[in-house]
Each structure stands twice: as structure tokens, then as C-alpha cells.
């Protein structure tokens, strides 16, 4: 708990960012407001170009908002340059200084702030231990594996006791197995340091498994804010439902419901029967996927949906079936 700091919250108020472009100004972030609690693991999730990275860069001070304010401990930091903000970033490609050793990389921030040498040495040592790289201090970044570089980048940011740690797609360069390990590692670091983490990703799995809360972003706007479970179970918009996990959308009439909007449901929430159910269709494909089996069903109206079952069912392609969906699992989106 050596690095434990007083945690800070962040209030983003009506922040917008406009970039000039050859085809006219582009609004990357459009009037976004949100509040991030102290000690929270908060994720900005969305497809590329949704504005999540721009929002993160404005918190870091690498971009200046066109309008709006960013309050850290009730102080507006929006006009401050990056080097005057108590906020540190783990960059997407780590951005380790290639001409410095691991130790010098980690010490960089404290040196720039003019901290005494003994304090720096001690802090660097602790930071190396925190990310379990005690014996790699004298290596150059190029001599480290991707996962180790990732840890150095984390240590380099955490050693400064930032009030907020920003992580920009920080795991996307790692392979699958390493990514899973780092997800656990990040949660551990966040617990141990008590620092507020703001994590940017386009990977919904990552967001769901790590975050306390998620803000799903779409085209410069926040589509929904909530806990992973709220977002998965009660997506506010069709975009959110589609982006988080897989979701079938069909006309209400196809399910025999009396409504004129589309109804969504998750593949694992629905099942089928050869008897009576909500909508009729025929099995078109059966994909055995190991843990689950996917059934592609063409409904009578021509719509195609996917269902997933834990155990293979005793049906064949072209069999006629009906859907069974518990009413509370149906998703009625506002948009």
C-alpha cells in the first residue's frame, strides 16, 4: 500500500472539442458531461472515432477543449498544459523513451518535478516492485517483451502518485493471454494504489470485466453510463445493445407482440421449442462452438436471428421451431 493516495473525483462539464479538417470542422466530442467518483475504475467504451480518446486526451492535457470545463478536486484544469496536471497516462503504444533505461524512464516524471534524488531512487524501486520488474531496471525498453513494456509504462505513470491514471487502449497491443493477465494485474494495482483509473477501450469484454462503471460513447456523445450489469441487461439504446455483446433485433410482430417498435434479446436469453412459443421459424444453420452451440434461425417474416444454447439440442437443419423468451429479458430501446 506504499503508493496509496488520497483519491480524487473528476467532473466533466459540457465539454466539446472541434477539430478543423479539409471538409470543415469536425466535432469529436459533443457537449459531454459526466462525473467520475474517487477510487473508481471508470471505462470509456466505444468504437473508433466515437471521441473516447479525444476525451481522455483532454483530461490528460494533450488536447485543449473547445468549450466546457474539467474539474479535478473542484479546480478547473482544462486550461492547464499537460505538464502541470496531477494526471498521468499509460499510452497506447506505451511511448517509453527508447534512449533511457527502464529506471530512467520511471524516474523521468519525478526528475522533471525536481524531486530529491534519494526520494526518486526509493520511489523507483518501489514502483519496479509494484509491477514485478525488480531485476529489469537497467534494461533498455527495446530489450523487454510487450507485457514487460506495458508494466514499465504503468510504473512510470504510477510512481508520480497521480490523482487520476489514464489508460489509452493500453492492452490492445498485447496478445489474448497476456491481455487477460494484465486485466487482473490492473485491477490489483488499482486496489492497491487507490488511484482513480480512467480506461479507454473499444473491447467490450475488457470493459465489462474490469470496470466499476462504463460510459458507452457514440459519435462524440455519451450513449449510456452505468455499471457493467446495467449496461448489458438494460441497454438504453439500440446502439448500446448492439455494441455490448450480441443482440438480435426483430419486429415486435415477429414475436407475436403488439407493439410497433423493434424488440431485442440476447442469444443466451432465448431458447426454442418444437411446441408453442413466441415466434415461428426454421433452423438454418447449427454451429457447434465447444462451450455453446449457435443456432441460426430464420423467422417466418424473413428475419434471421442467433440463439446460443449450452447443450446441443436434438434438432436438425430445416426443423420448424418456436422461440421462448422470458418477458423480463426482452429489450425495449428508446431509440
Amino acid at each position: 500500500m506504499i503508493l496509496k493516495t488520497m483519491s480524487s473525483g473528476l467532473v466533466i462539464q459540457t465539454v466539446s472539442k472541434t477539430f478543423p479538417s479539409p471538409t470543415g470542422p469536425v466535432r469529436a466530442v459533443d457537449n459531454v458531461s459526466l462525473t467520475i467518483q474517487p477510487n473508481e475504475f471508470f471505462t470509456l467504451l466505444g468504437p473508433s472515432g466515437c471521441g473516447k480518446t479525444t476525451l481522455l486526451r483532454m483530461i490528460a492535457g494533450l488536447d485543449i477543449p473547445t468549450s466546457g470545463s474539467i474539474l479535478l478536486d473542484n479546480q478547473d484544469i482544462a486550461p492547464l498544459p499537460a505538464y502541470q496536471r496531477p494526471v498521468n497516462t499509460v499510452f497506447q503504444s506505451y511511448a517509453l523513451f527508447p534512449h533511457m533505461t527502464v529506471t530512467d524512464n520511471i524516474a523521468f516524471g519525478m526528475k522533471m518535478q525536481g524531486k530529491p534524488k534519494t526520494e526518486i531512487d526509493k520511489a523507483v524501486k518501489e514502483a519496479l516492485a509494484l509491477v514485478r520488474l525488480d531485476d529489469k531496471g537497467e534494461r533498455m525498453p527495446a530489450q523487454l517483451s510487450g507485457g514487460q513494456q506495458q508494466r514499465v509504462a504503468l510504473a512510470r505513470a504510477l510512481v508520480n502518485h497521480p490523482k487520476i491514471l489514464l489508460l489509452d487502449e493500453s492492452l490492445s497491443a498485447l496478445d489474448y493471454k497476456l491481455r487477460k493477465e494484465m486485466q487482473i494485474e490492473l485491477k490489483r494495482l488499482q486496489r492497491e494504489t487507490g488511484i482513480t483509473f480512467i480506461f479507454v477501450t473499444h473491447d467490450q469484454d475488457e470493459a465489462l470485466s474490469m470496470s466499476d462503471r462504463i460510459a458507452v460513447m457514440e459519435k462524440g456523445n455519451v450513449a449510456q453510463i452505468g455499471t457493467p450489469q446495467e449496461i448489458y441487461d438494460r441497454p438504453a439504446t439500440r446502439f448500446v445493445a448492439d455494441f455490448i455483446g450480441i443482440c438480435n433485433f426483430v419486429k415486435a410482430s415477429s414475436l407475436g407482440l403488439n407493439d410497433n417498435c423493434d424488440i431485442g434479446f440476447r442469444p443466451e436469453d432465448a431458447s426454442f421449442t418444437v411446441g408453442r412459443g413466441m415466434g415461428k421459424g426454421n433452423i438454418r444453420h447449427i454451429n457447434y462452438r465447444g462451450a455453446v452451440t449457435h443456432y441460426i434461425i430464420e423467422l417466418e417474416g424473413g428475419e434471421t436471428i442467433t440463439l446460443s444454447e449450452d447443450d446441443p439440442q436434438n434438432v436438425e437443419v430445416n426443423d420448424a421451431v418456436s422461440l421462448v423468451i422470458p418477458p423480463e429479458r426482452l429489450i425495449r430501446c428508446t431509440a
Partner: protein
Amino acid sequence: MAASTSPSRLPGVATTAYLSLAFLYIPILVVIFFSFNANSLITVWHGFTTDWYVKAYENEDLRRATWNSMIVAVGATFFSTVLALMAAMGMRGRLPRGLAGTSQMMMTLPLLIPEIVIAIATMSFFSIILRSEFMAGTAFLKLVDQYPLTQVLIAHTVFCVPFAYSPIRARIETLPPSLFEAAADLYATPWQSFRRVTLPLMMPGVTSGAMLAFITSLDDFIITQMVAPPGAMTLPVYIYSMVRKGITPEINAVSAILLVISILLVVSSYVINQRKAS
């Protein structure tokens, strides 16, 4: 690729390459060879001597010209490299459209305009501003009066900038912008970020840019010939005046020294690069 069946092999290519290489080196070797020739008149071997080197060394005008060349080359290298480094960093940032285009043009144009045109343009420009009443009594005029090399130095700086710029620019493009953002994120002020991150990382580009500028300055003849006032003669200008007076083995000796210097420069930079690679 080495196999004779390889589709990349073309007949006649090797012959042309070796012939071209011989073509490139024979004249250089001829100069070095005859600089040791005892006969002063014709290109026939008459025995080995180093007299011409001694004679060249004792030639005071030659020594002064060499010294002038070094001063101008070092000065022009310094100023052009600094300008090029600043410009390369500037070109990376966000610029108003017109400014980026103008700067790009100013970097390219000196390479696209024949040297003789730059030479007469600079010469007539200096002759105008130095004679104009507008400039009378200014510090610039005093500087030019006191140091006749000033005009040469300015002219060299100008045409060296594009040469210094291109390796610097090439290097800066290999550095991801996130490195500089990381420095700012880790509390480095713009100046600290330049000292600790930008400059060390740019160093290979800056070194080769400076070397190119240095060679370009030492090499220049026509611009210096036109621009240099009396008393500001550089080595190539002096050698040219010697050649105009007649071919002497002394010229061979000076030329041989210059040739060996450039050979050594290239070989050493080659060896350094080899060592870095291994």
C-alpha cells in the same frame, strides 16, 4: 537472390556496375598518384616526391583560404543545422495551411534552382543592400566591413539549410508523437522535453544533417566565387584561381589532401554505422 537461377539476376548488370565504379575512381586516383610525381610539367611519372605537399603547406594564401573555408563551413553548419532542426520541429506541429506550404516550398526551392542563379541573385542582392543609403551606418554594414566572411557565411547558411533539413526531417518522422506527449504528461516543461527527449532522440538525424551541411559548404564554389569580397577567398575559390593560372603539381597535392579528407569522413561514418548495427 545469389543463385544464378534467381529471377532478379540480369546479364550485363555486373559489368556495368564495375565499369561505372572504375569510371568514378580512376580520376580520383590519378590526382592522388600525380601529386607524388617529381616531374612538374607533364603527366608522366618521374619518381616519387612529397615536395608538392611541402610547397602547398608553405603557401600562405592557401593556408588562409583553408582557414576561411573551415570558419565558413563550421559557422554555416551550426546555423543551418539549428534553423533546420527548429523548422523540422515546427513542421510537425499544427500550422496554418499557407505557412506549411510556404515553408515546404522554401525547403525545396533551393534544391530546384540552379546554383548559378542563386549565386548571381545573392551577389546582386548584397551589392544593392551594401550600397544603399538605407543601410548606411547600420550594425550589419559594420559587421560586413569588419568580417568580410559574413556575406559568405550568410550565403552558405541559406543553401545548407535544405541539406541539413532532410535527414533531420527523416528522423523526426520515425518518432511517434506520443513520445513527446509522454514527456509532457510526465511533468516535463517544453524546454525540458526538448533537452531530455527530443534532442537525444533526434541526434542521429542532427549529426548526419550537420555532416551534409558541412560537406556542402566546403564543396561550394560558384556561390562563394560570386559573393565573396576580396579577402574572403575560400579553398575552392583559391584552387580555381590556381587552375586558371596553370596546372601545377601543387594543385594535385592540395586536391589529394581534400580527397583523402572526404574519403576518411565517409569511411568513418560508414564504420560507425556498421558498429551501431552490430
